[in-house]
């Protein structure tokens, strides 16, 4: 592979069984990675390591950390970016957006009239037994109909390079702050490549989020007060909460900062109480309101749900969304997309056995040693058993769990996640990755952040990529961004800022537009005339 005898960082890089995104089996570099490959090829190994070290140091200084077992750790960011070609993104982006729309429609239905049950698409039992289905929020109508303001749809790429949805996260998906800070750090590390490759920007995320939160404010609030609700400084994603609050320019509150009086939510400030209109909450449903949910929770504020029901405050994401990202409900998603949107799913699911069905359960119990078994309500890679790597005892334990609680588990074939070159102690090696694109729904449109969080399993052969299981991240570059010239008109995001104000169109009538143009022309002509006059005067005197 190396063109000269001198070793480069790429010497010895060989893809394993999985789909390698940078290199095909013959060892030639795939198109999107050509530029990254060449750039790293020119470096020495030491250069690459020293850049990686500089990267880690900036993260420590900036305090880009996550809390693991009560300890603040820097979030590992790998030096080699992951590149996604624009043709691939043209599948992912509409696919994610379609998925979010279906989830949105499903949630509206579940907490409304439940047509999907009456039409036999989803069994009623499935909804009723979901741990995250809350009758207490049935009939709470969100201000602009949006329940999934922010979502993270986890995608993987299988052995054949096909993108598949692994799971939906529509409760409180986290990780977007690492997308933003990874980009900032990487653009300082590889300025040359950023100029040349046309990478789509991610910075507008905060503006988009703010605009979408402003738009979902309760009826009649023109300039809503938005807050981010965090469980506190010991939460593993505290860095993210504070970054989002900071970049949106809103307050970051904890439960004890909020109080509810007569169905209205206020925050305590040095100048007395201040009304809160929109809460972007990063606290789980169960802890949000001790009146309705866990009475021992001190992370939320009593009375929030009632205030939301009265329409005095909007909670984003809506309470009770968990019924849609239940892993068993996931198996119904392709049907739900067809049912609600009348479209074929763009991104396929991973094949999944529903263990409640007796035939499927039997097959799975037979083949347990070659399948992956996951709890339906798990997150962070907890409770996942990978058959081929599990011991006899572990498998027996799983078998017992499945038999006693079939509703609680699903089984999937082992997917060889795609690999991307990653810097390890032994040089560049393929490591497994997944992708979590983030989508923001503002009520009119689902916008997908170009790229998303790529999580990478840092140990060889490891298939679980969660950061709580020793995973790292990569900056994700989506190609095909068009650079805006200064002379061109402002990008659409510049107008997004005041999206929440629902501006009144100034030209209500098509003829106004024509009239306006004529007026402008007239003014221009007048100005030209005046200038000519002035010039004439100057010439004459």
């Amino acid at each position, binding site marked *: 592979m190396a063109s000269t005898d001198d070793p480069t960082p790429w010497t010895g890089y060989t893809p394993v069984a999985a789909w390698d995104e940078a290199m095909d089996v013959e060892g030639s570099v795939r198109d999107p990675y050509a530029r990254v490959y060449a750039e790293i090829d020119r470096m020495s190994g030491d250069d690459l390591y020293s850049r990686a070290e500089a990267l880690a140091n900036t993260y*420590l*200084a*900036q*305090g880009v950390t996550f809390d693991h077992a009560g300890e603040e750790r820097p979030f590992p960011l790998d030096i080699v970016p992951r590149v996604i070609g624009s043709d691939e993104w043209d599948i992912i982006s509409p696919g994610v957006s379609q998925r979010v729309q279906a989830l949105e429609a499903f949630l509206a239905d579940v907490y409304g009239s439940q047509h999907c049950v009456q039409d036999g698409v989803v069994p009623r039992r499935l909804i009723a037994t979901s741990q995250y289905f809350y009758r207490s929020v049935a009939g709470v109508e969100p201000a602009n109909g949006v329940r999934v303001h922010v979502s993270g749809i986890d995608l993987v790429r299988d052995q054949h390079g096909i993108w598949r949805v692994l799971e939906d996260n529509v409760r409180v998906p986290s990780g977007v702050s690492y997308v933003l800070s990874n980009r900032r750090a990487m653009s300082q590390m590889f300025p040359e490549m950023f100029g040349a490759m046309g990478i789509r920007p991610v910075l507008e995320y905060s503006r988009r989020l703010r605009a979408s939160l402003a738009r979902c404010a309760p009826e009649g609030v023109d300039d809503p007060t938005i807050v981010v609700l965090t469980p506190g*400084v010991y939460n593993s994603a*505290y860095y993210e909460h*504070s*970054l989002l*609050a*900071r970049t949106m320019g809103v*307050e*970051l*509150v*904890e439960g*004890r*900062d909020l*109080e*509810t*009086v*007569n*169905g209205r939510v206020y*925050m*305590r*400030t*040095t*100048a*007395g109480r201040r009304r809160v209109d929109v809460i972007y909450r990063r606290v789980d449903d169960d802890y949000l309101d001790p*009146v309705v949910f866990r009475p021992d929770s001190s992370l939320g504020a*009593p*009375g929030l749900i*009632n*205030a939301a029901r009265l329409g005095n405050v909007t909670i984003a994401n809506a309470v009770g969304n968990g019924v849609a990202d239940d892993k068993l409900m996931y198996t119904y998603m392709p049907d739900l997309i067809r049912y609600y949107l009348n479209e074929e799913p763009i991104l396929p699911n991973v094949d999944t056995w529903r263990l409640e069905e007796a035939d499927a359960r039997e097959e799975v119990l037979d083949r347990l040693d070659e399948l992956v078994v996951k709890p339906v309500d798990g997150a962070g890679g907890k409770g996942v058993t990978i058959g081929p790597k599990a011991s006899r005892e572990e498998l027996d334990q799983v078998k017992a769990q499945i038999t006693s609680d079939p509703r609680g588990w699903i089984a999937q074939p082992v997917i060889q996640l795609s690999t991307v070159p990653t810097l390890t102690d032994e040089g560049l090696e393929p490591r497994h990755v997944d992708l979590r694109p983030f989508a923001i729904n503002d009520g009119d449109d689902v916008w997908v952040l170009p790229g998303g969080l790529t999580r990478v399993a840092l140990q060889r052969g490891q298939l679980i990529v969660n950061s709580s299981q020793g995973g790292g991240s990569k900056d994700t570059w989506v190609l095909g961004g068009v650079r805006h010239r200064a002379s061109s008109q402002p990008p659409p995001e510049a107008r997004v800022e005041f999206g929440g104000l629902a501006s009144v169109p100034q030209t209500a009538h098509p003829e106004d537009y024509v009239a306006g143009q004529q007026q402008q022309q007239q003014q221009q002509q007048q100005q030209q005339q005046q200038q000519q006059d002035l010039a004439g005067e100057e010439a004459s005197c």
Partner: protein
Amino acid sequence: MLSRIAESLFWIGRYVERADNTARLLDVHLNVLLEDPWVDEPSANASLLSVMSCPLDGPVSRGDVLRQLAFEEDSATSIAGTLAAARENARRAREVISTEVWESLNTTRMDLRRWSRASRPHEYFVWVRERAAVVWGLSSATTSRDDAWHFMELGRSLERADMIARLLMTRSLEGTTGPNWTTLLRTCSAHEAYLRTVRALVTEERAAEFLLIDRLFPRSIAYNLDRAESILSQIEGSESNRALAGRARLALGRARTNLEYSPVRDILDDLVTQMHEVQRACATASDMIRDRYFLPSATITWNQEAL
């Protein structure tokens, strides 16, 4: 501004200032121990610790003092502890303070580990003063003069008045004659300013006056009490409920005018009591500010219907 955030900012101000002044105070103390030939070191050390409100029983060695006041990470009086606490507060108020201030506090906290007990203390103290200066410089250059700034400044001026009072108390430590006035002026970075203002050699009364009541020098007690008072009135603005904050100003103003309108000889004759008074005024003001701005106005009582 959220009450919780305001409290964090107030304490960032106090902690960083405390680290800075503790470094100055320890530096001068170690110097005195070296220069005073008749020094009774254990009792001088014990006396210093009681000035800093963390007395130890038994004979106190130099190492004990350094551990208690410089390196102990879990104590709110040691430099390492205050810098770590400032950083923790900054993490809680991360979305309000600027990135530059956050990074300076964060890297300070990380670099603390480099300074082991074995290294020369003087260099450590110089480093601490530098880091505090960096934090103040950055926050002054990057913070809007709104409540965020006011609360941090408030904490800082209260702490500075308090710490200068403690520093002056080292004049009368047991077991040593204590630092002379020139040293004290130097410790407060006030020597040059003093010489320019007074245009005379250092005499006890003029030096004391300078550190107690000079209206222009930013490290005199009266200057800082006055500053805290005026910040308090800025925070209050046109608010109607001014009882508690008013009482904070009252405490500070009384302490300040007592210094300003008493004959300086009287204060010097009774320095320890007078300096205790200043510290008490700062503590009272701090409590009043907490009650007024940081705590919920009343315990919330709620029942199902009222929600």
